[in-house]
C-alpha cells in the first residue's frame, strides 16, 4: 500500500482542535493493551502508508507511519539490513508508527540500541493541526530541539506521526545461540566478564535455570568466542519469541515489565524471565511493582497483552507514576504541543 493522507489527517486534527474533540489515534491496533483506553473519535492512520525513501548505502529508511512493520523488514532484508532495535510485531498489522509511538525495543536493546536511538527525523501533526518536520535523514543533526526523539514512547500524545526516518544497520554475518545451565546471578556475572573480554554478545535471556546468549559477528569471530565461552549451541527461535512476545511467559495474567539497572540484585529468579543483560525483568505479580522497581533504581509497567483474559481496568495505573516536578514539566510539554489536549488524552497518564 502506498498512499499519502497527510492533508486529510491534518484537516481532521485541525478540525478536532477547533471543536476540542479528543482523538483516539490508531493504526494496526496491535498495542491497545499498552496504555489506557482513549475516549475519543478514531483517527485511523493505517492507510497513510508506504516506504518513501531507502538507500542501503545511507543506512536510512523513510516511511509513512501506517507502513506495516513487515513491509519495512522485507525491504531491509533484501539489502541484508535490519531495524537493530528489534521492535516487537504483536500482530501482522503492527505499523512502524505504532512501534515508534510506543518506543518498544527487543532483545538486542542493550547491545545495539533502543527505538529512540535509531530515530533520525519525523514529520508530525501537532495538536493544533500543524504539519511540522524535525530532524532529518542524516546521521548527525543538532539543529533545534530533538522533537523527533521526543515522539518516541509519547504514544501520540504530543503529535500524530506522519513520517519517520530511521537509521538501519547491516545484519550480522552470522548468529549463534549458546545455552548455559546456570543460575541468574551467576550467569549475569559471567556475562559481564564475557563483555569485558569483548565477546560479540547481542542478546541474553535467563529463563527456568537456562542462560541463553546470542552472538552476532563474522564466522571466525563467533568460532573464537564459542571456543572460549563454552556452552551448548541451541536453536535461535528463542529470540523471535522474545522479540515478538509470543513466548509463553508473556501470555500470563498479571505480568509486569521491570526496567532496572542491569546489575540490580536478582530475587525469585524462578518467577521471572530476564533479558537485556539483567536490565529487563518480566515478572508475574498480583501486586503492583511500582515501589519495588523504584527502590531498585528503575521503573515498572503493567504488561497485559491483548491475548490475556483479564485486562487492566481503567483505574489501574499502567505506567510508573511520575513524581511532582516531572509530572508538572510533562504537563507543560503536553500543553506546548497539544494545548487543547485532543491527542490520545490520558493514554499514558490521566493528567496528560
Amino acid at each position, binding site marked *: 500500500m502506498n498512499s499519502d493522507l497527510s492533508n486529510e489527517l491534518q484537516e481532521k486534527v485541525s478540525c478536532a482542535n477547533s471543536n476540542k474533540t479528543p482523538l483516539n489515534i490508531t493504526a494496526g491496533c496491535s498495542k491497545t493493551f499498552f496504555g489506557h483506553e482513549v475516549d475519543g473519535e478514531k483517527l485511523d492512520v493505517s492507510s497513510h502508508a508506504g516506504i518513501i525513501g531507502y538507500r542501503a548505502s545511507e543506512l536510512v529508511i523513510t516511511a509513512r507511519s501506517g507502513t506495516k512493520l513487515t513491509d519495512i523488514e522485507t525491504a531491509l532484508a533484501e539489502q541484508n539490513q535490519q531495524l537493530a532495535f528489534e521492535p516487537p510485531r504483536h500482530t501482522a498489522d503492527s505499523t512502524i508508527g505504532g512501534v515508534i509511538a510506543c518506543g518498544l525495543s527487543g532483545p538486542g536493546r542493550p547491545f545495539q540500541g533502543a527505538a529512540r536511538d535509531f530515530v533520525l527525523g519525523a514529520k508530525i501533526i501537532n495538536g493544533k493541526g500543524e504539519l511540522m518536520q524535525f530532524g532529518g535523514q542524516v546521521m548527525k543533526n543538532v539543529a533545534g530541539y530533538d522533537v523527533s526523539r521526543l515522539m518516541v514512547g509519547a504514544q501520540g500524545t504530543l503529535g500524530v506521526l506522519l513520517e519517520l526516518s530511521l537509521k538501519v544497520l547491516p545484519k550480522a554475518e552470522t548468529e549463534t545461540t549458546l545455552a548455559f545451565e546456570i543460575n541468574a546471578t551467576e550467569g549475569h556475572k559471567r556475562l559481564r566478564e564475557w563483555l569485558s573480554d569483548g565477546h560479540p554478545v547481542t542478546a541474553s535471556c535467563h529463563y527456568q535455570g537456562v542462560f541463553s546468549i546470542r552472538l552476532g559477528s563474522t564466522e571466525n569471530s563467533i568460532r573464537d568466542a564459542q571456543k572460549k565461552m563454552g556452552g551448548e549451541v541451541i536453536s535461535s527461535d528463542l529470540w523471535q519469541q522474545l522479540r515478538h512476545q509470543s513466548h509463553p511467559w508473556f501470555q500470563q495474567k498479571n505480568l509486569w515489565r521491570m526496567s532496572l539497572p542491569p546489575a540490580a540484585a536478582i530475587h525469585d529468579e524462578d518467577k521471572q524471565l530476564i533479558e537485556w543483560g539483567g536490565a529487563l525483568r518480566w515478572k508475574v505479580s498480583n501486586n503492583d511493582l511500582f515501589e519495588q522497581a523504584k527502590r531498585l533504581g528503575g521503573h515498572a509497567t503493567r504488561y497485559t497483552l491483548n491475548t490475556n483474559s483479564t485486562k487492566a481496568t481503567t483505574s489501574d495505573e499502567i505506567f510508573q507514576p511520575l513524581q511532582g516536578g516531572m509530572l*508538572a514539566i510533562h504537563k507543560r510539554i503536553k500543553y506546548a504541543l497539544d494545548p487543547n489536549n485532543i491527542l490520545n488524552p490520558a493514554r499514558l497518564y490521566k493528567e496528560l
Partner: protein
Amino acid sequence: MNTSPDKKLVIRCLHKILPVESVLHQAEDLRPYECDGLSAYQQVPMVVVLPETIKQIEDILSFCTHQKIPVVARGAGTGLSGGALPLENGILMSLAKFNRIQNIDIDNRTARVQPGVRNLAISEAASGHGLYYAPDPSSQIACSIGGNVAENAGGVHCLKYGLTVHNIFKLEVITMQGDHLTIGSDAFDSPGYDLLALMTGSEGLLGVITEITVKLLPKPEAANVILAAFDDVATAGQAVSNIIADGILPAGLELMDNAALRAADDFVKAGYPRDAAAILLCEIDGTSAEVADQLEQAQQVLRNSAATEIRVAEDEQQRAKFWAGRKAAFPAVGRLSPDYYCMDGTIPRYQIANVLTRISELSNEYGLPIVNVFHAGDGNLHPLILYDANIDGELERTEELGGKILEICVAAGGTITGEHGVGMEKINQMCVQFNDRELLQFHAIKHAFDPDQLLNPGKAIPTLHRCAEFGAMHVHHGQLPHPELERF
C-alpha cells in the same frame, strides 16, 4: 526583560550567595569569558559567577528569575558555535568547579560525573577497568561533559557508537523555575516522555545540568586502520558509500583533501601520500577475528572503488601515526592562514561528491581557500574557510560564504549542524532549515521550561522577526539556495 540591571546591586546580591572570590566583575577578570571556541564572536558579560554547590546554583537561578536577569551557563568554553557567548546585561555562570567524578559503577558500566569534568578524564578514570566513554569530540582533552550534553557532541566514532544522546543514562537538572528534575534513569529506559533526548543538544536553553550519568563501554579487543589514497575527491566520497553498502560499519571513516593532508603531514609527519587528491582513514574495531575479517573486506571494497594506494597500519605505532595527522588537521590548517572558520553541515553520503564540488566553486567565487577534513562516514562536513581577520571585511565575506555552504547542505537533504550546535553562529540558517510553525513550536517548548526566557536567551532558536529580516536580506542579494539540487 530588564535591559540594564544595576550592576552594583547585582554584585551585592550575588555576594550573599557566593564567596567574594567566586563573583568576578572587574574588566580584567571578565575578559577571559568574553567568548567560547568561536572567537569571532565576543561579548564581555556583566558578571561571572563560579558556584561550587547545588544550593548556590539554585540561589543564583532564583535570583535571576526574581530580578529578570538573563543567565548563560558555561562549561570549558570550547564550543564552536558561540553557544556560551555571554550577554552584556547577563550573568555568566561557569560550572568549572563542578569537576568531580562521583562514581564509576563497574557492574552497571556507568560513570556519574559533575558537568565540569573533562570528556577525556572520564575515559582515563575508567581505563583501569577496561572501560571508556565513547563520544570523542576533537576537543576532548579540554571540553567538559556538561557542554557535551548541551551540544550533543559527536566525534570520530559516531557512526558506530553514536552521539552524546546515545551514550548517557541520566541527568540531574535544575530549571529556571527551581524544579529539580531527574531525567532518565540507571535503567535502559524511563517512564513518560524522552526528556533525556530533549535536553541533549538543547544548548543550555532548557535547564542547568548539575550531574550526568554516562554509559561506559568495554574497550574493543582490537582495532586497526586502513589508509586509502584517491586521485579524485569525488571518487573518495563514492568509496565511503561503497564501504557502508557492503555491510561494514567502521569505527571511524574520515576524509581529508589534498590541502588538509599536506598541512597535516607537514605538521606531524604522518607519512601521508602527499600527491593524493584525497585520503580516507577507515578504522575497524571489535574482536581480533572481526577486525581481521573486516580489514580484508574493506580493502577489497576500496580496491574496487579505484583507490590508488591502500596501506594497512602494520602496528600500533603506525596506526597512531595515521591518526595523529587527522587529529592534528585543524591546528595544521591553522598554520596555512592567519584565521580559519570551521563549518559543520551534514549531508546524505551520496551527496558528498556533489556538495564538495559546489563548495569548491564557491571557494573560487569568493577567492577564499577552503580545506576539507571531515567525518565522511556520517556525512558530517567540516569545511575550513581560510581568511585573514585583519583584512577589512574578510570575516564578513567568510561568514557569508559559510552561510551559503550551510544552505547547500540543507538543499542537499542535510542539516546546518551535525555536532557543533547552532549557538549564535548559525542562528540565521535556522530560518532556512525550519519554517515559522516549527520555530514557534521550539519557542513553545522553551516556554514550558523557561517562561521568562532567561536561560541563554537569543541562542539556538531565532525569533520570527530575526528570520524576516534575514529573509529580506537574502532576497536583496538575489541568491536563492541552489535550485539545481534536489530537495527533500
